[in-house]
C-alpha cells in the first residue's frame, strides 16, 4: 500500500489505489455502487447515470471518476436512493420493457435494479416508442425495444472484438444503436461469440434459439439481488 490513500464512503473510511475509479475502490471494499452501463473489462462509459454519487457534495459518475485522497462520497443515502430510482424508472418508460415475456427476465440487470430498488411501477408516463427488431443475423437477435443505450456493445465490439460492429446514430430521443452496415446486422462481421453479444445487460442483443433454457429458480437474480455478490465479499 505504498501509494495507497483513503477515501470516505457513507461515513466509512476505505483504502484506495491511485488509478482506481470511485466505483472500483468501493467494490474492492465490498461496497456496492449500483451501475448499469459499467462492465468489468470495458472502458468506463458514464452513460447511464445509475452510479452517480455525491463527491464532496457534487454529483459525479462513480464509474468514471478517479479517486483522490480524502474524497468524501455519499452513495447509500435516502436522497441518492431516490435519485437512482428515478433514473431507473426513466430507463423503463423510455423503451418498451415487457419483462413478463422477455427471455432475459431473471438475468436482466435493468430488471434486477428495479427489484433492488423496489420499483413496482414507474411514476413517469410510458413513452411507447416505435422501435424495430433486427432478426437478419442467423445467430443473433436485436430487439431495440429493450435497448437502454448503455453502449456496452459498442465498447465491447471496438475494444474487445476489434470490430466496430455497433455505433450510436441519431441524437436526443432519436438516438439508437446502429450497425456498421447499410441496415442489417447480417451485413456486418458480427459473430455470436463476440464479446459485444455477451455484454448486453438487457434483452436487446440475444443469442438466437437460447430462449428460456434456464428454468425459473436457476436464473442469475432469482435468489439474491443484484450487487449482493459484492456486498457478500465485505462480510466474508
Amino acid at each position: 500500500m505504498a501509494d495507497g490513500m483513503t477515501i470516505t464512503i457513507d461515513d466509512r473510511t476505505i483504502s484506495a489505489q491511485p488509478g482506481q475509479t470511485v466505483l472500483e475502490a468501493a467494490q474492492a471494499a465490498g461496497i456496492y455502487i449500483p451501475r448499469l452501463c459499467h462492465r468489468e473489462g470495458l472502458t468506463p462509459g458514464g452513460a447511464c447515470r445509475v452510479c452517480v454519487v455525491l463527491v464532496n457534495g457534487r454529483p459525479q459518475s462513480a464509474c468514471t471518476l478517479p479517486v483522490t485522497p480524502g474524497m468524501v462520497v455519499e452513495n447509500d443515502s435516502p436522497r441518492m436512493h431516490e435519485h437512482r430510482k428515478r433514473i431507473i424508472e426513466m430507463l423503463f418508460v423510455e423503451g418498451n420493457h415487457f419483462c413478463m415475456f422477455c427471455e432475459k427476465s431473471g438475468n436482466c440487470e435493468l430488471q434486477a435494479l428495479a427489484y433492488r430498488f423496489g420499483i413496482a411501477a414507474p411514476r413517469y408516463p410510458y413513452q411507447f416508442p416505435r422501435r424495430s427488431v433486427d432478426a437478419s443475423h442467423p445467430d443473433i437477435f436485436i430487439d431495440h425495444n429493450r435497448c437502454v443505450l448503455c453502449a456496452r456493445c459498442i465498447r465491447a465490439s471496438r475494444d474487445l472484438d476489434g470490430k466496430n460492429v455497433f455505433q450510436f446514430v441519431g441524437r436526443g430521443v432519436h438516438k439508437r444503436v446502429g450497425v456498421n452496415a447499410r441496415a442489417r446486422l447480417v451485413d456486418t462481421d458480427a459473430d455470436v461469440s463476440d464479446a459485444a453479444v455477451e455484454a448486453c445487460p438487457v434483452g436487446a442483443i440475444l443469442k438466437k434459439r437460447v430462449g428460456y433454457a434456464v428454468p425459473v429458480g436457476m436464473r442469475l437474480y432469482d435468489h439474491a439481488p443484484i450487487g449482493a455478490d459484492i456486498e457478500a465479499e465485505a462480510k466474508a
Partner: protein
Amino acid sequence: MVASNTRRVVIEPVTRVEGHGKVTIQLDEAGKVAQARLHIVEFRGFERFIQGRPYWEVPVLVQRLCGICPVSHHLAAAKAMDRIVGGEKLTPTAEKVRRLMHYGQFFQSHALHFFHLCSPDLLFGFDADPAIRNVIGVAAKHRELAVQGVMMRKFGQEIIRITAGKKIHGTGAVPGGVNKNVSIAERDELLREVDQMLAWSRGALKIAKDYTVEHLEELRDFGSFTSNHLSLVRDDGALDIYHGGLRAITADGEKIFDHVDYQEYLNYIMEEVRPWSYMKFPFIRSLGPAAGSYRVGPLARINTCDFIDTPEAEAARREFMAVTAGKPNNISMAYHWTRMIELLHAMEKIRDLLHDADLQGTDLLAKGRRRYEAVGLIEAPRGTLFHHYRVNDDDQVVMANLIVSTTNNNEPMNRAVRRVADDYLSGQKITEGLLNRVEVAIRAYDPCLSCATHAMGQMPLKIDLLDSAGNLLDTRSKGTA
C-alpha cells in the same frame, strides 16, 4: 334492423364466468324472443402483436392471453414450435413433464370452476338469492367444499410451479422439450397430497353426478340442443387431452371425421365472422356454417372418446353414457358431470405419472429438420385449442391463427342462451332467477371470454344506440362496410 315497439333486455356483466360478456335479448311486439345473443366485448390482439417476435418466445408470450389456463396456450404454442425445430418427437422425460403440467392445470381449472363458479347454482338452486348464491355463500354453508376447492386448486398450481417454474406464466415448455425435469424432492412433495386429492375428486364427481341425475328431467331441456362434438382422441380412441387426432361426431354419434392429423385442420374447420361479436364462429367445413357448429370441452370429449384409460374415470364415463343409452349426451348442464369425470381422470394420471421414473430423466430436448409452418393442438380445460404459426428464415413469426376453446363453443353458447330465453323469458316478468338461468346456461360451458377474443384488425364491430323504447338512434360500424 330493430323494429319499434320491441324491448331489449340486456344482461351485463355476465357473472361468474372468466372474462366479460354481454347478452342481449331482443323481444318482438308480441313479447316473444326474436333474438338472443352472447356478445363478446373484450378485445385482445395477440395474433397481430406476436408478428415479428422470435418463435422461441411465443410459448411464453401467448400464455399471457389468460391467467386461468395459461398452461394450455403455453403447451399448444410449444407443440407448434416443437415442429418448427423438428423436435416433435419428444424425449420420454419431456413428454411426461409436459403431461404432468397439463394434468395439473386441468385439475386446478376444473376444480376452480366447479367449486367456486358453478357450485353456488347447484347447491342453492337457480332462484336462490344472489346474495348467498356465490362462493362466499358456499363457504358459509358448505365450508368443507369451499376449502376443498381452494386446496385442490392449490395442488394443481403446485404441479404447475414444479413443472413450469412458476404457478402462473412459467417457462417450462421450450421448443423441442422442457427446461427442467421433476426432482425426487419435488415429486415427493406432490405425492404426499395424492390420496387426499383423489378422495376429494371422487367426492366432487359424486356431487355433480347426483345433482344431474336428481334433476335430470329439468336439466334435459335446460338450455339444451343437439349439436356435433369435436375433440382430440388417442390413436386407439382413448380420451387424451395432450395429444392425438381430431375426431368429430354428430349429435347421434356418427363420425364426421376421425383421426385427422391436426396439421390439416384448415381442411376441416372454418371460421365465420359475424358483425356483432369480436368472437368468431368456427364450423365443420363439410357441413357448412349453418349445420357445422360443434361443441368442445368436457362434454364433447366424453362423447367423442371410445374409453378412458384410467379405471375410476372410465367407470364414471360408463355411468354417464348409460344415461343416454350410449349415445352422445347433448344436455348443456351435463358439462358439469363430465368436467368432474375429467377432474378424476386428471388426478389418476397425476398419480400414475408421479410414480414414473422418467420424470427424473435428464434428456430434455429433441431437435430435427427445421420447418416454417406448424400447428399445435391441445385439449384445454374448456376444449380444443388450435395454435397455427408461420415462421420465416430469420426465425420470426409472420402469421398466427388461434382458435381457442371458448371460440369453438361460441355458437353452442348462443344456442343455449336462445333456448333458455325461449323457454323462460318470453312474455314473462323478468326475475333475477330467470336472468340467472341465462347465466347458468352460459356458465355450463365454462367460457373464458378473455382469451377468446384475441384477434385484431379482422373483426367488424357494429354499435347500435337504442333508446328505452328500442328505437335505433344511431349506428356506427368499424372494420367492415
